[in-house]
């Protein structure tokens, strides 16, 4: 089913016209209301009137996470707070959290994007939606919630955690659609097995999964273990939250980007020059209709490409493959964003440890595991086992406190971690995503 047939199956010539007029008014609006954007555009020598075609977007400066941080918390909002009805924020583990706001109209648009996503996954108003995305500052929970309500589904706002109860509720309430992160879903499958619950006893038939990278292999496993269809959804809070792009159940091959609201570009990962459709590079988004917190050419750092063919489902929007790579060294571990620099800071704070380290990420079964290898320098070495064990435990605790993830700390001999000529290779990601 297609939620908004007129928009989602629009011929490309028409879509381009819609995109251009929305882009023009968006650029005018941010120029008029956000001094930071105005300054950046003035510096780049571009005025709103210069945007005469979609190609002219390349004249506009990029926006990065750094820009968002510089304007913490509300500096990039285009409306006064009295018009903002919702504020979300990232967890702030990498420094200043990024704060995003929504007007009433933004929330309505978001609900539509999620309703479109649910419809693409074959969900209808008769469904019972089990929403296990976290509720709170994280955009997943409430974003999905409003979309399911918009569609008219019965929504169970269960949020994450307490897996046994989740399964009891699925059974008793007859949940038919599951929204969760893929890794938590496999956790739920394990819990079901522990409880002796056979998935065939449940009414679940489809799941919509996102917020972290996951593989085709993981999809097959989820589909097999829960006996459901598994649909991929994409979004990021800076652009909207969940619902920026979604797979259709017909093809399950590439995610349709809601192009009438989010203009995608692919740029070269080194030169940042726009690339032709189909080539691989960094995904960049410009929001076309968002009011409170629009972004102009926001660099997602996700490596992606655009698939221009019209899909058998009828949607004309470009698709993007599953995102599996990043241009920065950010790792997503069990849904948590982790930068090696954060681990480095922790190591430096543990007195005397010179941060020669390496992070090894693996997927054991369904869960990501992270091992931090730290070279033992003479400053921290002790001939007593308990002192070295305490050092490892302190590092582990500090990582857990700051990043919220459990890790294994392995103390290794100096010079055993490979030195590289240029940028240190801090991360060895052995996961097959």
């Amino acid at each position, binding site marked *: 089913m297609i939620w908004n047939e007129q928009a989602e199956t629009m011929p490309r010539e028409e879509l381009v016209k819609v995109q251009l007029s929305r882009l023009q008014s968006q650029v005018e609006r941010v120029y008029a209301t956000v001094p930071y954007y105005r300054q950046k555009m003035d510096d780049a020598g571009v005025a709103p009137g210069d945007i005469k075609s979609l190609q002219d977007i390349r004249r506009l400066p990029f926006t990065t996470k750094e820009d968002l941080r510089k304007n913490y918390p509300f500096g990039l909002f285009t409306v006064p707070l009295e018009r903002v009805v919702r504020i979300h924020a990232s967890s702030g583990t990498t420094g200043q959290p990024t704060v995003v706001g929504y007007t009433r109209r933004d929330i309505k648009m978001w609900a539509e994007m999620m309703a479109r996503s649910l419809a693409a996954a074959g969900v209808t108003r008769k469904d019972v939606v089990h929403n296990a995305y976290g509720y709170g500052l994280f955009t997943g929970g409430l974003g999905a919630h409003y979309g399911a309500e918009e569609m008219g589904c019965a929504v169970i706002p269960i949020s994450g955690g307490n897996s046994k109860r989740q399964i009891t509720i699925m059974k008793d309430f007859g949940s038919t659609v599951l929204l969760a992160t893929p890794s938590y879903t496999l956790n739920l499958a394990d819990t079901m097995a522990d409880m002796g619950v056979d998935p065939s006893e449940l009414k679940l038939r489809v799941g919509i999964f996102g917020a972290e990278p996951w593989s085709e292999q993981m999809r097959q496993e989820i589909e097999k273990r829960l006996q459901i269809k598994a649909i991929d959804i994409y979004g990021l809070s800076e652009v909207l939250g969940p619902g920026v792009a979604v797979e259709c159940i017909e093809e399950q091959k590439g995610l349709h980007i809601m192009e009438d609201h989010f203009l995608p570009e692919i740029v070269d990962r080194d030169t940042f020059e726009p690339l032709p459709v189909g080539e691989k590079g960094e995904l960049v988004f410009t929001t076309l209709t968002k009011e409170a917190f629009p972004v102009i050419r926001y660099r997602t750092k996700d490596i992606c490409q655009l698939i221009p063919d019209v899909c058998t489902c009828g949607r004309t929007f470009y698709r993007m493959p599953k995102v599996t790579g990043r241009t920065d060294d950010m790792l997503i571990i069990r849904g948590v964003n982790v930068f090696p620099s954060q681990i480095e800071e922790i190591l430096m704070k543990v007195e005397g440890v010179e941060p020669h380290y390496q992070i090894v990420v693996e997927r054991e079964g369904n869960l990501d595991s992270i091992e931090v290898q730290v070279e*033992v320098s003479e400053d921290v*070495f*002790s*001939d007593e*086992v308990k002192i*070295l064990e305490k050092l490892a435990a302190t590092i582990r605790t500090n990582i857990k406190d700051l990043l919220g993830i459990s890790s294994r700390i392995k*103390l*290794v*001999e100096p010079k055993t971690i490979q030195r590289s000529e240029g940028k240190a290779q801090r991360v060895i990601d052995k996961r097959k995503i």
Partner: protein
Amino acid sequence: MQVQQVAVFLENKSGRLAEISHCLAEGGVNIRALSLADTADFGILRLVADNTDKARTILKENGFTVGVTEVVAVAAEDRPGGLDKILQVVSKASLNVEYMYAFTQKSGESGLLLFRFDNQEQAIAAFTGAGIRILSGEEVHSM
């Protein structure tokens, strides 16, 4: 009154121990005593050599993390009860042992116990008070 001990950090990898013995052999260092403490992830090799500085330099040059600590060497009578006599002193004085290891001298007259206490001075005083012989560094290194 104390004996210098060389401690080396070791990853649990096969062949590492042999590399240490090989370096020391090449450098002509004689090992008087050694012990290996191991955990799941790493080990600590502790050894007393005839020449501490030389042992340390050689190992450092070969990329090992090396520390030098002092241990207390105590002679124990080489007969039943010999060890017990010493440990009774340790117990009565409430000395906290971080680790210990032992070896028997060639002569067969006495065993030698190497102790690391959290308070070495207090331990030396307790042994001296109980009439137990403590060996000097020179004695042990040149055995």
